[in-house]
């Protein structure tokens, strides 16, 4: 057991740094050093992830965790978004100056939970990792302790707890039917069942449906999306950013892993759940896009936009389900989209954080004339919005082409048509923000300034979005490598 510790070196190193942050926060006065330690810890963990990249696929701790490129890729993605969120909250933390230590420590703890979640291959570890990240996020969402934030935290807590109870019931039923909690053992059992008795096994199928519902909450798919706009609006903006990317990416990673590993085998079974996901995808993107059209608060707008993006991601998940036997090119569409979405959305949120630090408002009308008050921030936000819409020369376009062409190959043309129509609708509200920023008259001529960590984070995101948009080949190779483990 001890020799396997090195496989979870990223999590352990991040945990050590989180504990250091907590203890230091108790004993020292100057808080400036805390974000430095947090970022350093994330980089050490990132280094550990990169060092593990080459190792052969294996499972550790009695099939509790897997070490594979899929998990490592998402770990790296989570760590990158953790670093960017910490950098971006550089000025925001002054709103709760006394509690900076807790803020960074909880962020890191939730990142550990997400990192364990993406590599978990046992229902027990999946549940514990999910709760580790969720419970930290409940606290972070209500961190401001004002009316809005505590209300958002309360809603997130209640709905999250109910979702996890439902998820757990699904897990218990799957465990009861198959007698196992490890995903590969479940897969072996499901493969071994005669088709007739599998179709006639309501307990297993109910378990599967409950499982999808429970994760539907995490990835914010309709009809489990009610919490998203409220929580996004009320939470501290850096946490909103973190929720919309890291938590969502990990949710998609784990749901893809469960569905493909444990229920990927009899052809009709994976076609069935792929169809469920496809129908949910239509609902998710339509609801997200249509309600987003009438939003006036930018955080709420991004809440609905992230629901819509979850819909596109579910198109990829459905294609993955249909393509369980095909090569890894199609299966990597989801991963590539998550990659580009994470950087794009994070970039947009970093710009929003920087702007709202100055103007203290989240109303879209207050963004009027932002191009004159801070051209660089407005440019950054515009690049990210263009990418979210899916226009050249950005990562969003490549990701959408990639994910939709994969779905068309798998005979989901109807789904892709709906998704493209939805993308056109989304252009309306994304460009509403752009128009307000560039065409609107400035409310006043105060310059909107920002600090170098914010510049660094925003610059990194925008650069990545454009670079991926222009030379996507190298990144596609990485995501295809990550998708390889689901080959059959």
């Amino acid at each position, binding site marked *: *057991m*001890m020799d396997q510790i090195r496989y979870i070196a990223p999590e352990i190193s991040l945990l050590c740094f989180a*504990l250091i942050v*907590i*203890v230091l926060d*108790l*004993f020292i006065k100057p808080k400036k050093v805390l974000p430095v330690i947090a970022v350093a810890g994330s980089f050490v963990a990132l280094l550990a992830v990169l060092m593990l990249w080459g190792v052969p696929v294996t499972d550790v701790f009695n099939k509790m965790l897997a070490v594979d490129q899929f998990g490592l890729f998402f770990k790296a993605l989570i760590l990158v978004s953790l670093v960017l969120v910490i950098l971006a909250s550089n000025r925001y933390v002054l709103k709760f100056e006394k509690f900076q230590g807790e803020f960074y420590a909880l962020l890191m703890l939730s990142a550990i939970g997400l990192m364990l979640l993406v590599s978990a291959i046992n229902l027990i570890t999946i549940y514990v990792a999910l709760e580790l990240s969720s419970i930290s996020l409940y606290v972070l969402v209500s961190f401001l302790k004002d009316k809005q934030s505590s209300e958002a935290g309360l809603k997130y807590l209640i709905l999250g707890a109910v979702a996890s109870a439902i998820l757990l019931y699904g897990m218990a039923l799957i465990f009861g039917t198959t007698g196992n909690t490890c995903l590969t053992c479940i897969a072996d059992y499901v493969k071994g069942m005669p088709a007739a008795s599998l179709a006639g096994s309501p307990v297993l199928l109910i378990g599967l449906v409950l499982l999808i519902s429970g994760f539907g909450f995490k990835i914010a798919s309709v009809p489990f999306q009610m919490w998203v706009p409220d929580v996004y609006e009320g939470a501290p903006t850096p946490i909103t950013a973190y929720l919309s990317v890291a938590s969502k990416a990990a949710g998609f990673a784990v749901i893809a892993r469960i569905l493909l590993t444990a229920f990927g085998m009899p052809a009709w079974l994976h076609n069935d759940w792929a169809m469920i996901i496809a129908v949910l995808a239509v609902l998710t993107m339509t609801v997200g896009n249509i309600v987003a059209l009438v939003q006036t608060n930018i955080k709420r707008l991004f809440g609905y936009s992230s629901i819509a993006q979850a819909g596109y991601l579910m198109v990829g998940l459905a294609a993955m389900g249909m393509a369980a036997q095909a090569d890894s090119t199609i299966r990597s569409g989801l991963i590539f989209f998550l990659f580009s979405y994470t950087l794009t959305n994070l970039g947009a949120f970093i710009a929003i954080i920087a702007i709202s630090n100055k103007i203290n408002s989240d109303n879209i009308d207050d963004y009027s004339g932002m191009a004159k008050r801070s051209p660089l921030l407005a440019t950054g936000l515009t690049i990210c919005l263009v990418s979210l819409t899916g226009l050249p020369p950005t990562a969003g376009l490549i990701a959408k082409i990639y994910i939709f062409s994969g779905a068309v190959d798998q005979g989901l043309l109807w789904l892709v048509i709906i998704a493209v129509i939805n993308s056109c609708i989304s252009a309306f509200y994304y460009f509403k923000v752009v128009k307000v920023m560039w065409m609107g008259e400035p409310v006043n001529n105060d310059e909107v300034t920002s600090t170098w960590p914010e510049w660094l984070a925003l610059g990194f995101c925008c650069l990545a979005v454009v670079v991926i948009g222009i030379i996507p080949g190298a990144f596609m190779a990485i995501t295809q490598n990550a998708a390889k483990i689901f080959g059959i």
Partner: protein
Amino acid sequence: MLEQYGYVGILLIIAVGFTITIPLLPKLLQLIGLIPHKKNPTKSGQYECGMQTIGKNWVQFNFRYYFFAVLFVLLDMLTIFLYTWAVNIKELGIGGLVAVGVFLVILTIGYLYAWRKGALQWK
């Protein structure tokens, strides 16, 4: 199988009969004059002995109890894991010892946090 439910039926009848008769018994005995009937305030109070009750029964507890409750829950969880470790202490060997040690260190940091933040003080 069916006659097994008969036992449940009998149990049910006894239970319902018992709960109905017992509260009615004093009234019955009163009616036939076996027990005296004298009202007095102490007798009709909620408790026949001890202190007089003061105030309403919907009292808000001081929220500081909450901190102690949480710290207690922490110990509770500690017991769960220590117990499962203790019953298998031989098989788990040195690896288990190290794991529990790490667990305890993390918990201690939790208590350290509570102590430094003043959660252990009643102020």
